[in-house]
């Protein structure tokens, strides 16, 4: 490939014969979209991100505030009502928190899986409950072949789950 400077004098009027308004309107859309993204990110992703054991102890993870909470779904805790409302318990570092959501979580939601729930902590006479708006399954970054050492894996998962509980 010839990379030596070839053109000493400015060349052709390029795309001038094409109407630049197409490029200009694309630029306008780009600026609007970019602005919307930043706004959306600042309003939603900035919901403070707390682990279960940080509720009430870490600043920002206060009762009543919109936060995202992370923990693992406790074995045997998932209960689904006929209306679709689902309740379960999540835990992290030995601390647990009951969660109530209005609809059935989708994705690969199941027991003993890490989840992120968006919502807020409510407190009444019986204790703290997390009122969730959205449950997102947080899959970790390890992948393993299905059926490979299935028993071993199930055992490990169960051990991990009960150990925390």
């Amino acid at each position: 490939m010839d990379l030596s400077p070839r053109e000493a004098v400015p060349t052709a009027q390029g795309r001038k014969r094409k109407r630049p308004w197409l490029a200009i309107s694309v630029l306008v859309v780009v600026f609007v979209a970019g602005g919307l993204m930043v706004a959306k990110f600042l309003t939603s992703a900035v919901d403070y991100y707390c682990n279960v054991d940080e509720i009430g102890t870490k600043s920002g993870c206060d009762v009543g505030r919109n936060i995202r909470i992370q923990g693992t779904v406790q074995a045997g805790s998932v209960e689904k009502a006929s209306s679709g409302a689902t309740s379960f318990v999540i835990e992290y570092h030995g601390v647990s928190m009951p969660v109530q959501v209005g609809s059935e979580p989708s994705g690969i939601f199941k027991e003993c899986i890490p989840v992120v729930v968006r919502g807020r902590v409510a407190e009444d006479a019986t204790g703290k409950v997390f009122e969730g708006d959205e449950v997102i399954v947080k899959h970790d970054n390890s992948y393993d072949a299905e059926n490979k050492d299935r028993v071993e894996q199930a055992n490990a998962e169960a051990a991990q789950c009960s150990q925390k509980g």
Partner: protein
Amino acid sequence: MPDLSPVSIARPTGTRFSRVLGIASLVGIAWLVVFGLFLSPNDATQKAGVRILYIHVPSAWLAYLAFIVTGVSSAAYLFKRTRSLTWDRIAGASAEVGVLFMGVTLVSGSLWGRISWGIFWTWDSRLTTTAFLFVTYIGYLAVRGLGGTHQQRARRSAIIALLATLEVPLVHFSVKWWRPLHQQESVAEGKLDGLMLFTLFVGIIAFTLLYVWLVLHRQRVLAMEDALDDQGLDVALAERRAEGAQV
């Protein structure tokens, strides 16, 4: 030596090297499909969903690489001793391919998100910064189309490209600065099962070959378009006449 035989016009941007590269890319993609969809195992948790990894990760990596190439080529254009419109065209071609790869990364990622997290999209740090990068480079391509001389185009877009390159590390570190939903990279930490890792490796090779092939050809098409501009209005008219005759 160059000839204007029908063969060379049929493949106006092809050379022996690019043809070999093109065939290698096709073979790589075929391998990727065979390993990705058929030979590799399902994931224990994600089941078939893990198969999206083999196209999602390579297209994302190559999109980043493409934007870095755009940045480096733009710097080479701005640097007086290496100034050549060829660098500008490589920058433009690489950005186009980068936008294409980033676009398909966003689509495959949201499909993966739907079956893994349960949602198509969330304003997570990794997702938001990636979408922002995508939109930025669409803006860069629009700036290239604003008109003026080729030198004006090259200078203007090179400055934009250098600014945009600053976003690439932002995306990379976004997963470390904020706690995101998006998983961290699995490859470096060896968290992929053997055949899965191999399939991902096949994907990265295939997409790398494809990237080089696409940029090589696109850059030559851009060179022909610039040459046409230089030839002036006569040719434009002739082209329009030829178009009219074809229809």
